[in-house]
């Protein structure tokens, strides 16, 4: 193994990327873990906001619908970087005001919670649109039939709407998940130690820019490709029992 690396002239890079302290590989992996944690949290929060947002847009009153339209339009027109800064300051300000009002000291907000809150609100706007489209694609007769049987609204959602819309929503949600993983890189700018910031610190202290940035790129790419596999699998599962569009054997 070492001979092969030396033959390729990569021995130095391998040493820099080693997992134990003289190398920086451990830091990169820790950064990746932080990134994934935030991406998972933000994606989950986005799904919850998106589900309620989609229901509000489809079945809500005129005021709620207008408010949700403003939410999705504004979030999708302003750069994520600017939103992250605004939401970050607003969030920390609100929490500190609440804490001082209740007689506590100022609290330090953990980077992970702040990142999930900020990216979750951004993801929610996109998820609202994806899920709204997916719910609209469900044949209305199915939902009407559930209502005609007197199913409560929540049970209709759980048993009819969500399973039926899954196959329409998966491609859009897969895209959203990829956006979530890549948007975590933006948290580097507010100083949160996720993969991109760890990479930059490692690179600037060893001056081996290409080694570290390429390694981080490979890690992101691995996550992307692996997620593609998983989502392909989920989509096949969500489509089970549906006739294939390509024709051929049912």
């Amino acid at each position, binding site marked *: 193994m070492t001979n092969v690396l030396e033959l390729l002239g990569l021995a130095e890079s391998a040493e820099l990327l080693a997992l134990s302290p003289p190398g920086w590989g451990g830091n990169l992996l820790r950064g990746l873990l932080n990134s994934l944690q935030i991406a998972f949290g933000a994606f989950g929060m986005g799904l919850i906001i998106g589900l309620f947002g989609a229901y509000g847009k489809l079945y809500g009153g005129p005021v709620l619908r207008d408010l949700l339209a403003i939410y999705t339009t504004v979030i999708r027109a302003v750069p994520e970087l600017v939103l992250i800064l605004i939401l970050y300051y607003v969030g920390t300000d609100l929490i500190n005001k609440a804490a001082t009002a209740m007689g506590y000291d100022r609290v330090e907000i953990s980077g992970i919670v702040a990142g999930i809150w900020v990216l979750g609100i951004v993801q929610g706007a996109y998820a609202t649109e994806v899920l709204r489209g997916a719910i609209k694609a469900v044949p209305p007769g199915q939902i009407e039939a559930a209502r005609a049987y007197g199913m409560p609204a929540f049970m209709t959602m759980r048993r009819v709407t969500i399973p039926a819309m899954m196959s329409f929503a998966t491609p859009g949600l897969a895209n959203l998940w990829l956006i979530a993983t890549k948007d975590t890189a933006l948290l580097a700018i507010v100083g949160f130690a996720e993969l991109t910031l760890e990479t930059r610190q490692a690179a600037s202290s060893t001056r081996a820019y*290409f080694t570290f940035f390429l390694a981080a790129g490979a890690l992101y790419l691995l996550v992307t490709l692996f997620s593609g596999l998983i989502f392909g699998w989920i989509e096949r599962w969500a489509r089970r029992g549906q006739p294939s569009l390509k024709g051929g054997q049912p």
Partner: protein
Amino acid sequence: MTSLKSLFVPHRIVMMILFAALVVWCALSLRWDWIPQYAPLAAEGLWTTVWILVVTSILGFALAVPLGLAQAIGPWYLAAPARLFCTIIRGTPLLLQIWLLYYGLGSLFPQFPWIRSSELWPYLRQAWPYAVLALTLSYAGYEGEVMRGAFSGVAKGQLEAAKSFGMPRMTMFRCIWLPQAVRNVLPTLGGETILQLKATPLVATITVLDIYAVSSRVRSDTFIVYEPLLLLALVYMAIAGVITLGFRWFENKVPSAQR
């Protein structure tokens, strides 16, 4: 266009009054006294944002056409690299790409004396060429994927008709294939251009002075947090609105696709 009548239903009038009250409150109770001092710098930053957006979108699109073509009809030795390029660009964060080019290439170039003595060196020492390169490649990567679908979406009969008239291949591409492919994806291109606009503030992290960098400077100079950010969000929304209107105008100009 939403009709004017639908704008004047009662709840919307109430919402507009509330919004106007909010704007008045913002104008009166927040601090705006820093604007005159920073206006010239902000104009410069706005100009930087706009030209970076326009230049990288045009260059990126020019690069996306061969990328899409290679993936749609190219032989495997062209299609495979094109697909690899698109996968890599779409699979890694743009911030990482910008930093790789700026810090990586930026630390590599000074090691070669012939680069240092070349005519290009004064430009290569600045940050904007790296920003333009990174954003161009990113736009090309996303658009290459869009154009692949666009090229294979043009009806076969159109191309066969052109061929049977004995049209040369370049003329066929220029007059039949490309216009129809672009027409079919105009709405997608508009969306992607707005995404590109939203990617431009990242160049501020490598010291390019765009409108975002100006707002950060105001924030760090005066310790005013919200006002510059709110104004910045408003500026980006205005640019996004202009892009949307521009593409809508262009979509109305070209004959619509088959229904």
